[in-house]
């Protein structure tokens, strides 16, 4: 049986490469350069348990962030505290959270 294992995603994101975060911030939808593609592939291969996701709040109007349970039948955790009206902003916020999750460091572009 062919089974994907998130542990096979072994690329390490260098927290010093904030230039890649800036590249993403400036152009969320891509196409992206090779190194940023690696960062994104790593981020998008996180385990289904607690994986960040976007959830439709009002179709075509607003979205919130959630975290998948990773268990069939169990709903995602939904964070209603911040409502997004632009999907690119959701992508960016998830990127920031994953940066922290995978590098251990807050992403600070200031």
């Amino acid at each position, binding site marked *: 049986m062919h089974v994907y294992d998130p542990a096979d995603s072994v690329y390490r994101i260098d927290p010093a490469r904030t230039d890649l975060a800036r590249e993403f911030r400036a152009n969320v939808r891509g196409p992206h350069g090779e190194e940023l593609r690696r960062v994104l592939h790593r981020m998008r291969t996180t385990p289904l348990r607690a994986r*960040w996701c976007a959830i*439709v709040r009002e179709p075509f109007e607003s979205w919130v962030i959630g975290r998948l349970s990773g268990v*069939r039948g169990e709903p995602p955790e939904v964070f209603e505290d911040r409502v997004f009206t632009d999907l690119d902003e959701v992508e960016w916020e998830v990127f920031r959270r994953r940066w922290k999750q995978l590098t251990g460091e807050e992403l600070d572009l200031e």
Partner: protein
Amino acid sequence: MADSTTRILGYVDRLSVAPGDRLELKLSCADVERYRLDFVRIVCGDPDPRGPGLDLVPAPSPLDGEHRGRFQPIDAGSYVRFDDTAGLPDGGSVAAGAFIWPTAPVGRRETVLGWWSEPDASGFALEIDKEGRLRFRLGAGGRVFDATPASVLLERRWHFVAASFAGETGTIRVGWTLLDPCAGFPVDSWAAREGAAWRAPPPGTPILVGAHSARPSHGRWMSGANYNGKVESPVLAGSAPDPSRLRAITERPAAASQEERLLAAWDFSSGIEGTVVADRGPGARHGHTVNLPARGVTGRTWDGSVADWRLAPDQYGAIHFHEDDLHDCRWTTDIALEVPADWRSGFYAARMRAPGAAGYVAFFVRPPRGEANAPIALVASTATYLSYANTHIKFDSLNTENLYESLTPISEDELYLNEHRELGLSHYDTHADGSGVFYASRLRPMLNFRPGLYTFNYLNDTHVVAWLAARGFDFDVVTDEDLHAEGEDLLSRYRVVITGSHPEYTSTRMWDAFDAYQRSGGRHMYLGGNGFYWRIAFSDEHPGVIENRRGITGVRTWEGEPGEHHLSFTGEPGGLWRSNGRPPQRLVGVGFSSTIFNRSTHYRRTAASRLPRYAFVFEGVGDDEPIGDFGLRGGGAVGMEIDRWDPALGAPPNSVVLASSEDIGIGGLLSVEEFVTTTRALDGVQNGRVRADMVFFETPEGGAVWSTGSIAWATSLAINGFENNVSRITENVLRRFLDPNPFDPPDGGLPERA
């Protein structure tokens, strides 16, 4: 707040109806007591405000108005059911044996086989407990006796399992033997206990393999403790043979002596195509499968010498059960409509509305049988819609976000599907035990096969509907299911046949119908990508279902198991049509090359397109203007899934590439079957095969085929109020294809080259 789309759910007994046909609508309302019903013809089913927008035309019927809602349960999980229990002992000696290959032994109680009523706690059942241990359970109404061997069963390994109860002594014996022993792991594990008793469950309780009789829900019988895994050769005896005798009987039921009182010996290796399960025992207690457990799967003796169950059915004596299999919700009918005579052919939906809730159930109105009401037939790709129905990939599949290169927001419908697994799975899903889904049924609510937020297939094809309406073309709608049933005869009534954005799933009869139509002067416009890709099967024995085996190549979300690539419905090899000697290029000149989900791009005309022979396609379009550098999906007409021309894969010798994609970029990724060694050059920046080709060719008897080779073509048609070069080119081709003047192939059969 938008109305909830999940409080009223339903399905229809048939997808395609003609005027005068009876259409039965089956509904379930979780909490809606009354709803208002009407019917609509769908011009555009896509509510995206950036596109043409939801466009629904009322289709009045005598049933329009208020109706009472009610809840109807779904009994998911497959099993084999045997209703003939005459002559079974009531409390006396009994034994059960089988070979099993458990696929999810840990986590929940599962019943391998038994004659057990859970509400009465009576009967007997061979189970797996939630720790993954085999258990034999007896019930005498309130008193339950069981025995459990200490070692756990091994996942995806064959075991002989056995259980017996000796009536004279009250002794239970239960255990298993591993057929393929593993070092360091026990070869067998047995347990026994004294002082047990049982009595027969209430009259009408069936013998089940793969489940037990659970508590009824809303007055309906329900299965429970559904098993995940394979079972082979289950037997029942009215005696308590020792384990070695029981194994001998399980392997060869004819070996049972008179005293051993064989009660049943079920043979899963015969009748693999259908639902009937034969009993080789003296009682001929034949049964039937429920909810489509997988058949035509390898058994304990499969040795790799054959890959086709038709050649060695004895090596395919197993059935694979899943807790989340579903065929038919078996809901009772809420609304029975006689389709009004004045409803023109088209995409339709029943619409149910209540305060805060709105639900759609999609269906199609075809022209009266044997007739055509327009010169154009649009083939609704219902096999594709069904194959994707109720997909769970955003929740269950690790690679979804990588595939789409974005978060792809989760809708209310998708949240509901995750929590309500009883609505069944799509061909893109894996079962709870990780195995791939072979069967997809339309006899259940399908939340992404209706107007809504799921932006693939059904919704995109309604952009073609909207375009035909906007340009003033009269057309009939027929479905894949109609085409499978009626073949070329159905198409032969039309001057032009249009296939939509994604006609991905094709049965042999569907393929043959298109092929025969094209060879007899027919004109086929294929407006999509990734078409004619998977070989599927329909079956009269499994109404409303298509079967698909994923095989060992192609873009897939799971891979089939060795030896399990032949369709159980027909025996045909499944997988890609390309793997079956019919690359899509043979039928429509182009075949799948790549996915490109991050953004879409455009086409540029080839030099050949400027030859006078092909001028009709580009009337009003400049020689060098980009074609389709706009679109609702990714901003272009070349996107999502794209096809390329290739004579080596059977594109007809007179076929010509009129336009090809440009600027594909890094988001274009070659499909698995397009390369045989891995290199660093599989993307659209480096690899020229990552492209879409627009192709035209003449066919015998004055016919022709025109293919766009891209899913995103359809969703570019409506841009700028349908005034754009994608719309213009499509209209140019359609007008010429409607013209009865035959297409003459080039002299000598080969195309002019620029």
